[in-house]
């Protein structure tokens, strides 16, 4: 999953970005409102963590402009204001959630997960594809009750495919959602990781879940 974090306080911004990266999110970080809007328009994120008080453009304005342009990217507002009025204003403008600073880290993580989930139309923290079960909170994977060990990257890839299960996902999509703007990965790496994933998820099991659609991309679904 790829996130945009826009927060003008340098230490807080870096802590949030570092913490999210340690949770295997690809994170683009900015301290400025104009840059945040630009990045949100140019890249596709699974969620945006948006501080309200940003220099040059505040969070309200950015959110308004994104929504008016038709963006459905989930947005989690961070704010130092605690009033109900601001909460209502934010939610009515199109924010998906709202966190008041200072917040507990675990709560930020949970809300980011929830907002990403909802952005993909999922309700539960557990995703099932056939007999494959993915627990997005504990970051565990089982197939037919057998636990499967995945690396961080592999899990992120599987999670992304699962969030979009049944839909064909192009290599570019995958690459854009797994790597942030500073990563030097090439699109080959996607094929490589799909290979690793197939090895662990599909190889020893009767039914295949990861399918290639030639020329289009990959899809995670039960056969048939």
């Amino acid at each position: 999953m790829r996130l945009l974090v826009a927060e003008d306080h340098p230490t807080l911004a870096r802590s949030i970005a570092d913490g999210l990266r340690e949770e295997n999110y690809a994170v683009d970080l900015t301290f400025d409102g104009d840059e945040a809007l630009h990045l949100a328009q140019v890249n596709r994120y699974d969620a945006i963590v948006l501080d309200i008080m940003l220099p040059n453009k505040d969070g309200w304005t950015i959110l308004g402009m994104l929504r008016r342009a038709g963006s459905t990217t989930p947005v989690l507002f961070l704010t130092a204001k605690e009033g109900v009025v601001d909460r209502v204003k934010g939610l009515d403008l199109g924010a998906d959630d709202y966190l008041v600073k200072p917040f507990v880290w675990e709560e930020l993580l949970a809300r980011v997960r929830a907002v990403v989930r909802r952005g993909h139309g999922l309700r539960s923290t557990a995703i099932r594809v056939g007999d494959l079960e993915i627990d997005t909170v504990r970051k565990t994977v089982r197939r037919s009750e057998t636990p499967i060990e995945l690396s961080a990257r592999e899990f992120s890839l599987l999670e992304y495919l699962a969030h979009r299960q049944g839909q064909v996902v192009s290599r570019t999509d995958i690459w854009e959602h797994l790597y942030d703007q500073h990563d030097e990965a090439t699109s080959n790496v996607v094929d490589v990781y799909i290979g690793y994933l197939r090895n662990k998820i599909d190889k020893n099991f009767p039914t295949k879940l990861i399918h290639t659609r030639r020329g289009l991309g990959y899809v995670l679904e039960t056969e048939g």
Partner: protein
Amino acid sequence: MTRRIALVILITVWAMLIVGGVGAYVTTRAVLLSDMDESLRIRAMSLLGGDMSAPGRDERYVIRNEAGITQLRPTTSAARAEIKTLQATFSTLADGVRVRSVTLRVTPVGGAPVTITYSRDAYKFDRLLERLALALALLGLLGGLGAAAMAMRLSRITLAPLRETADVIGTIDERQLSRRIEVAKLPVELAPMAERLNDMLARLQAAFAQRKQFLGDASHELRTPVAALLTNLEVGARRDRDPNEYREILERSLAEARSLKHLVERLMEQVRSEQMSHQEKPLLVDVSALLDECSDIAGVLGANQDIRIVRSFAYGLTITTQAERLKNVLINLLSNAVQYNKPRGSVEVLGERNGNGLYISVRDTGQGISPDHLNDIFQPFYRADGVRNRSDGHLGLGLAQVKAHMNAIGGKCEVESRLGWGSTFRIWVPDDYEAQKVPIKEPN
């Protein structure tokens, strides 16, 4: 108070009614009695004079001679007789009837005196007086009660606005400071007091609003640095790391904690500068020397940007005021002038006496402030560039402090600015403000 008024009126009216009633009764009785006695005398005399018309059923008489023997009829004429009233009394006869009797001794010329006692039933008289007494008593009682009731009602009506006012005052707490006493409803004598109370409420309301605003701003300002500290440490503690990473986390946390400390100190300064109770004693201040000193400090601050400090104030300027506050104001204005200046720009410091005070101006060649913001820059935490750049330690509190200090010493602060050209901050410092003020009693 209503009850006391009512009681006093009740007792007074009753006393008056009792006195009046008793007087009326006694007078009436005396008049009626003398009337009756006179009529008895006339009847007695006419009897003696030969008029034997039968006395009324309720009248009787007895005529006696000198020896005390009853005579049926007088033998002498009563004309030109000497008449002396011996007595006039009430008495109860043997058959139980109460009568009024008048006894006369009539001594005819050249004749023997006779006494005649003429009596009439007192029944009617007694009944009449009884009724009179009752009527007066009843009148007195009712009159007294009526007067008292009316007094109570009148005083309640008059005091009702006071009670309403007391109720209104009773409901005023910090959430209801917008309520005011309706002066028009009160008796005119209470208007000045009510107006002063309303003024006081207005001042309290303003003070509370300012405090609430400040608390909101301060809490807002504190939240992000606290979040930075907290998130930094939480994320840091989530997994095992190598010592270098830990060191970096600790250093970032330390920097943030220091910045918080600085913020808290500035907030406390702001609170202190707003409080009227923070009073120093006004002193005679050598203003020129103070301006010199502050200009030196500004020079140091602006050294690495090559900012020139131009001293355009006269020497020998003095004023009596709170020295620390004035110094605080000057340092704030000068450091702003240096901070928001262009490289190789200048800051001009002017000062001159005017009437019973001083004008001091600080003019910079900085970026200037746009007209939309000119009113807002004195608000706590306001920063015209919208940036919360914590690294330079500026929190937007400097001008708010300047305003608070100038208020405390009875002065004023204004600003003129042109975008791209620079700004001029001008303060007016009155001489010996304290001496002109009405002293305010401090609560203990």
